């Protein structure tokens, strides 16, 4: 009697276990495929951003640092960081602004590293007869000077870039068209609906405003 009951119980249990296992498997596949879809979506979004914003971001990086290869490396790092933290991007600002802020942080980190390296000292073990057996600590003067010059140049360009951003839109547009896009005077006048003499007055006023914004130290 008991044996019969046991075998009946087993007959009931088996389909339930199979059912549970089946649902677990299907749940696993659903979750897994969702992750795959999300990852693919994420990758295609980042690829789209590379296509859309890399030129702008390269220009931004090059306005602050002189080395093109370094700018490309920082650009790459920016997209890698964006890929990693894409989930945290809430969309409150545009993707362009978000990527620019990541790149800006990377540039600042680079400057910090450069400044730290500037103060690095070179130590070596002296083998000369006078100081034999002493550790000599000396500053690498040539390297320091070069790094300093580069930093100053980069900072000056960054200052100019920041000051330009403070100009009124029309002035900024005229300066950009004139000095960065190589547009001819007539073209600029048509685009901004100003006369030729007005355009030169605006160029003069924009440069005066830049001069005030940059301060005397920038020019020394």
């Amino acid at each position, binding site marked *: 009697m008991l044996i019969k009951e046991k075998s009946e119980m087993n007959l009931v249990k088996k389909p339930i276990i199979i059912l549970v296992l089946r649902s677990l498997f299907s749940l696993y596949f659903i979750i897994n495929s969702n992750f795959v879809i999300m990852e693919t979506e994420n990758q295609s979004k980042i690829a789209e951003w590379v296509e859309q914003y890399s030129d702008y971001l390269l220009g931004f990086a090059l306005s602050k640092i002189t080395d*093109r290869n370094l700018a490309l490396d920082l650009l790459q790092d920016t*997209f890698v960081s964006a*890929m990693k933290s894409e989930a945290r991007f809430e969309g409150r600002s545009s993707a362009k602004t978000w990527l620019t802020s990541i790149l800006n942080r990377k540039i600042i980190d680079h400057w910090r590293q450069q400044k730290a390296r500037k103060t690095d000292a070179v130590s070596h073990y002296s083998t000369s007869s006078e100081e034999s057996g002493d550790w000599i600590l000396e500053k690498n003067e040539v390297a320091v000077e070069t790094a300093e010059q580069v930093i100053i140049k980069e900072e000056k360009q960054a200052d100019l870039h920041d000051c330009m951003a403070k100009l009124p839109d029309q002035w900024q547009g005229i300066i950009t068209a004139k*000095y960065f896009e190589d547009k001819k005077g007539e073209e600029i006048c048509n685009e901004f609906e100003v006369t030729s003499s007005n355009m030169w007055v605006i160029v003069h006023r924009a*440069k005066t405003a830049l001069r005030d914004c940059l301060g005397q130290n920038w020019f020394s």
Partner: protein
Amino acid sequence: MSKCDEIQTWFEQSLEENISPTKRMKMRFHLMRCKCCQGYTKDSIQIHSTFKNLKSRASRLTAEERARITKEVLK
């Protein structure tokens, strides 16, 4: 527009295009005696050259560079 503003505007124009000989003469005479405008022209040239420098480096990514970045990012 004050005399200095006018001269400085002419100076800006002269950096990019030809200005009339009369304007050029007036500008030169003024620049000889006006310290303020001398300072402006010096600073303006520096800003101008920094613009040129910035422009020369502001270029687009090549197709190879773009492909490399995309590949590295999606790796």
